[in-house]
């Protein structure tokens, strides 16, 4: 149970997720065994319907496996009650989505604060943590605005800040760049990679943009029809460079630039 005792951040063994569909059964995830190391940045690739999002939901504890096991930091998610699973989601997992899924009636600050309400973080601590989280994603202003008043990239930064605010060890991103133009999408991935490096959290990202995945992830995992096709580490020449502290420094001015561009947009 001790997170530091297990060798892997995530380990799935022959995990399956089947849905009944009329008389037929959809095998969304069909026996995937996968091991992800602590601090690793893994991209899940595949056609739509390949099961990558379903796998991500299983890792997130939003969905339960039909069979097989999902072990995150030594804990088998199948053995958790729904209350424990909720606690796992709020304390150990940060998740972002293609559609951002911010709550439109809440301000930026309130959106970022929301997970802390569920985690019962003391009120006095919250404002500070909200500010910290937003600063990490390069947003320090317009905190009282509503999500709809921000650009797509900014909204995704807010949702990343929300995912970070409870200091998760596992960061899950479901097509985080899907709704963004390529330039903004790149900025978001730079941010996610940098956060992974600075906090040591494990990142699992679902995407269908192979080129982007190759640039930022350390490993590409290909799925088709709910099965694992291949798992390819990216040679350190391309993504390994980014691991250097230099890359992180490079990222910082870029982020600032991107932020101001989006603000004007």
């Amino acid at each position, binding site marked *: 149970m001790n997170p530091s005792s297990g060798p892997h951040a995530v380990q799935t063994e022959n995990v399956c997720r089947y849905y009944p569909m009329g008389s037929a059964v959809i095998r969304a995830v069909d026996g995937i065994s996968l091991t992800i190391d602590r601090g690793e940045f893994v991209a899940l690739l595949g056609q739509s319907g390949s099961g990558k999002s*379903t796998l991500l*939901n299983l890792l*997130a504890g*939003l*969905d339960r496996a039909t069979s097989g096991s999902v072990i995150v930091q030594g804990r088998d998610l199948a053995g958790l009650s*729904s*209350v424990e699973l*909720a*606690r796992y*989601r*709020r*304390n150990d997992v940060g*998740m972002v*989505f*293609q*559609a951002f*899924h*911010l*709550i439109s*009636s*809440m301000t930026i600050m309130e959106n970022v604060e*929301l*997970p802390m*309400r*569920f*985690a*019962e973080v003391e009120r006095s601590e919250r404002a500070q943590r909200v500010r910290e989280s937003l600063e990490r994603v390069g947003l320090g202003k317009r905190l009282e605005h509503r999500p709809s008043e921000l650009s797509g990239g900014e909204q995704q930064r807010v949702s990343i800040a*929300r*995912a970070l605010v*409870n200091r998760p060890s596992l960061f899950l991103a479901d*097509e985080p760049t*899907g709704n963004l133009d390529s330039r903004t999408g790149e900025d978001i991935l730079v941010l996610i990679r940098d956060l992974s490096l600075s906090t040591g959290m494990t990142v699992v990202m679902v995407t269908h943009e192979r080129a982007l995945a190759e640039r930022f992830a350390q490993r590409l995992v290909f799925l088709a029809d709910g099965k694992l096709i291949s798992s390819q580490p990216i040679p350190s020449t391309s993504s390994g460079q980014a691991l250097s502290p230099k890359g992180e420094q490079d990222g910082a001015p870029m982020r600032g630039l991107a932020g101001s561009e989006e603000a004007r947009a």
Partner: protein
Amino acid sequence: MKSYDMMELAARNLGQSKLRNGLTTIGISVGVASLVAMLSLGVGLQQLATKRLAGSGMFDTVFVACKVDARGWDREEDRKDQNLEKAPALDEAARDKMAHLPYVTEVEPEIRVMGEILYGGQTHFGFVTGLPMSARENEAFDSLQGKFFSRSDADEVILLNDFAKELDPKDPKTLIGKEVTLRYGEHQPLAAGAQASGTPELGAQGSGSNSNDDYGFSVVRKTQPLKVVGIIDEEPYGGMRTVSRGRIFLPVDLTEKLNMAQFSDMRSPLRGQGKTFMTLTVRVKDPAKVAQVQDAIKHMGFRTFSVLDATKSLRRFFTVLDLFLGIFGSLALAVATLAIINTLVMAVLERRREIGVMKAIGASDADVKQLFFAEAGAMGFLGGVLGIALGFAIGKAINIGTGIYLHNHQLPAEPVWILPAWLIGAAIVFSIAVSLLAGLYPASRAARLDPVQTLKYE
């Protein structure tokens, strides 16, 4: 989730669709208002009835009768008392014993005899009634013109206004201070040999077959000068006493001193008894002690009746009335409950994605359920408070309306609608409880939502 966080989120969610939630809340408040208005009408009517009885001065009074005379007062008691022959007589000795019971202040016979007032050369017939000094407190004397009796055996008379008009149609008020003459029948024990001489003008006597002859008595015509001291509009203890309406009121001790012959005196020779009372009116110092005094008198072997008995059946009537008013009032609240369910189900459908997001970032099923409960409860609370305000306004309107109606019928205004403090608290609690009940289904539906389905990219 901490409760203040839940309250805050619930409040913000309610604020999101102000119109819909506002209308639902108004729906609840109408329901609560109708319930409050109905129930407080019941309370008001009950208090009005009780006050009327209290004003009649009878809450501190026990009526006592011999079991033989009291047949028919209470059928159940009748069935219990089979052997009435042995029932003790309500005579002077019994009266004396009662007067010495703790908490008893007065024991007066009920005197109601036929009499005539001679005034201005004319004779006016009327029933003569004896009034104890405590009758001054009776509401009938609110309209007293002139004065009350100076002493309980003063040679004074108070007349009913209608009767005074017979005496002096033009200005009955001028009678006050004037002297009139009362002609009445005096109860006289039979003098030895009187039966043989046949002197009494009007005679009543025993069967004559044995020594029971002693129980007969004579009724002798007498006159008594009286000073008119006051005029009243209504007979004191009006609705509570026997059939004939008293129009001439004398201090009770005077009536006893004059030894007026009553109808009920006829019973004594028939039963072979001396002078007995038809009924005695026992006045108790404190209304709370009425039951105790009543028990003591019952123990002496007499039949008793008090307003306490009357209020028992009155209370039963009002319990049934309250129940019906409550049911009618609840109908509107039942409709409001459906409105809450509808509103919250709509909210669940609308906020599917939001619920999914909350679950994805760590909300448990219980958190989601409680959030919807909090929203239902908040609407219930607001609706309850608003409803009481509205019910209060409706009640005031009822009071004003009945006030105008009573005024048009030359009656004094009385509040028929009273909102007691307990009803305010109960209505709010009830409103919240009903709202939470209504929130049960929508909340569990929200909690059951599958986040994977709700978060699918559309």
